[in-house]
């Protein structure tokens, strides 16, 4: 072991004040997050490494899940129910939606379990708690990337070339991450206080899926309910994300900027409120964990 001497440790001394902090609304402490960036990196790395350990199919699960969903949707909603798909072949129409939506729902369930699952760490050592729910939001990007490869294969199969709108895809992915972070922070801090969230998350994800334009196009809402409701519908950020994915990758319709705009507003609100609710409640996590 090294000689620990004071000369070697002439780093600036970090001052901390620990008090009750009742009813204090704060936003994220960026300086601290930067200090702990290595920890965040290892959290995400751990999640990715561990995810498919001790499975037979391993990383293939990241392919099998969305592909089977696509097959089921194509048979039931595409063939049997004959739901319109804006002129796009139904399999790729639904897959372009399954891709961001699966990421979204996996991040949410990962985040909502995260604090409860890590309670042994929470009660023993200090680090910014916010890293815990944000970890699944980033680690699920690995699955997203693998499923994305499938989409590329499918686009080659259907001979679809993306339009110039492809440049907006990173923006859509950012919106998708921001939304997941916002809701993830809300769900995780609610879940550690009220374990009801654990039971609700199952039907909530199917509710969220059927309310998003996964098996149907958003244009159907515009058709049936009119433009005002269509805009209101856009407040659900995944609506803009999914329709944006379809438009930028498959290019059958123009970019739905109205939906994306509405979605961005609520995503930012969700993120800010989620972060401050998390910050406000994090002081009791160790006591209720």
């Amino acid at each position: 072991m090294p000689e620990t001497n004071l000369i070697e440790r002439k780093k600036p001394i970090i001052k901390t004040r620990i008090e009750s902090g009742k009813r204090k609304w704060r936003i994220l402490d960026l300086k601290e997050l930067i200090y702990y960036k290595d920890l965040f990196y290892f959290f995400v790395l751990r999640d990715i490494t561990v995810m498919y350990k001790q499975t037979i199919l391993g990383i293939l699960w990241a392919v099998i899940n969305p592909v089977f969903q696509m097959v089921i949707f194509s048979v039931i909603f595409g063939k049997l129910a004959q739901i319109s798909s804006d002129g796009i072949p139904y399999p790729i129409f639904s897959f372009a939606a399954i891709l961001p939506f699966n990421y979204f729902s996996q991040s949410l369930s990962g985040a909502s379990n995260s604090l409860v699952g890590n309670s042994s760490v929470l009660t023993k050592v200090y680090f910014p708690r916010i890293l815990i729910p944000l970890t699944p939001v980033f680690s699920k990007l690995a699955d997203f990337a693998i499923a994305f490869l499938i989409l590329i294969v499918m686009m080659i199969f259907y001979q679809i070339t993306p339009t110039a709108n492809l440049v907006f895809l990173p923006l859509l992915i950012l919106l998708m991450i921001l939304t997941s972070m916002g809701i993830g922070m809300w769900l995780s801090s609610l879940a550690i206080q009220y374990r009801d969230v654990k039971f609700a998350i199952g039907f909530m994800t199917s509710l969220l899926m059927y309310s998003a334009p996964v098996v149907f196009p958003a244009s159907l809402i515009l058709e049936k309910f009119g433009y005002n409701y269509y805009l209101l519908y856009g407040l659900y950020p995944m609506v803009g994300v999914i329709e944006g994915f379809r438009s930028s990758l498959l290019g059958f319709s123009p970019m739905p900027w109205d939906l994306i705009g509405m979605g961005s507003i609520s995503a930012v609100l969700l993120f800010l409120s989620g972060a401050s609710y998390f910050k406000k409640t994090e002081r009791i996590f160790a006591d209720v964990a």
Partner: protein
Amino acid sequence: MSEFAIKVNDVSKAFLIGLKDHKKETLGGTIFSWLRYPLENYNVLKKLNTYNYNEDNEDLFWALKNISFELKHGETLGIIGNNGAGKSTLLKIICRITNPTYGFAEVNGRVSSLLEVGTGFNAELTGRENVYLNGTILGMKKKEIDKKFDEIVDFSGVEQFIDTQIKKYSSGMKIRLAFAVAASLETEIMIIDEVLSIGDAEFRKKSLERMIEIARSGTAVILVTHNMLPIQNLCSRAILLEKGRIANEGITEEIVSSYMGQQTKSKVKQSWELGKAPGSEHIKMSKAEVRPLLNIPVIRPGDPFEFEFLIYNLKDEDYDLTITFHLTDEFENLLFIGSTAMTNRKYIAKKGFIKLNCRIPENLFNAGKFTISKFLVLQNSAKLLYEHKDLLTFEVTSDYAYEHGKSGRIEGLIKPKLEWEVTVKSETEVLEKI
């Protein structure tokens, strides 16, 4: 760095306990209560968040009450107290794991805690991956771990398995690796809680040495343990916690001996009023005590001590008295039988008090916990007048630090001091003699 490292100012911490369930007697009431169940539960859970800190709120348990102290850089402070005295809660507040209900704590510097080693170890990951994960959880940067990685692995002694999944490790290997990570932290403040009792004897010695090194390097240290000797050895100052309050504070020696005094009252000393004393129709117990004969509050291996028994004899006639006791260790091995019969002298009992002192010679006991499992009073070495079970329990404490790191507990039921005479003769000398 003349400033304090830790300042705890009037800290109190309350926990919510004992929310009573109201049981309904009627079917209607039961159904109604089911409907109201979610609402009631919500209120209960909500209270965890916003309970009222009224002093006489019965549902509140004050784990800490008005705690204040300061710790300077380079100082070592011991915190002692029984289970539930609030030691862990206090440490958790200093480590920022939980917030105080009232008051505040100020901490100048990075804090590392050996509260529970191995926090965040993931069974599926390899030793190497866990070193990085655990190290960053404890507040290190990747670069720091890179630099110290070899030292950590070296200290833990698991280099052969460093790329094996942790789930295939033995529990001892896991603990050693975890401790090695935690002990490599270089922070201004270090909090150590009961880690002195992990691993095998050799590793315990190694970790204690490391801890002494840390304490002497200018790091401010808070040490919490039930083992008094490291506290006496490492800490200049100590705090005694009792039911969430500071019961005593001052020089370690004084605090430890006052704590040991109240700790051991029931075990190393028993005394009874004559009316309530246990005994038989012939004999009543009055007092029994284990007394160290050196001027320290503990008995170390090799130290002399004595038993003192005081009994009251009710028999009118005089008789030949024999007192015998069985001394067992904590595993109920009989170490020896002590008896006045072995002295080849006769003790004639008369009505009234009889006091016996039995001196245990030096260099006999090894470290351990011992019990006088049987205490017998006999007439004419044959007729049992009274038998008392588990009369006294006492501890002979060994500690590496106290023995200046020379050795751990040497195996064996007893630890006698042997006299050796070793004669070495050179070849020529031997020849001459022949």
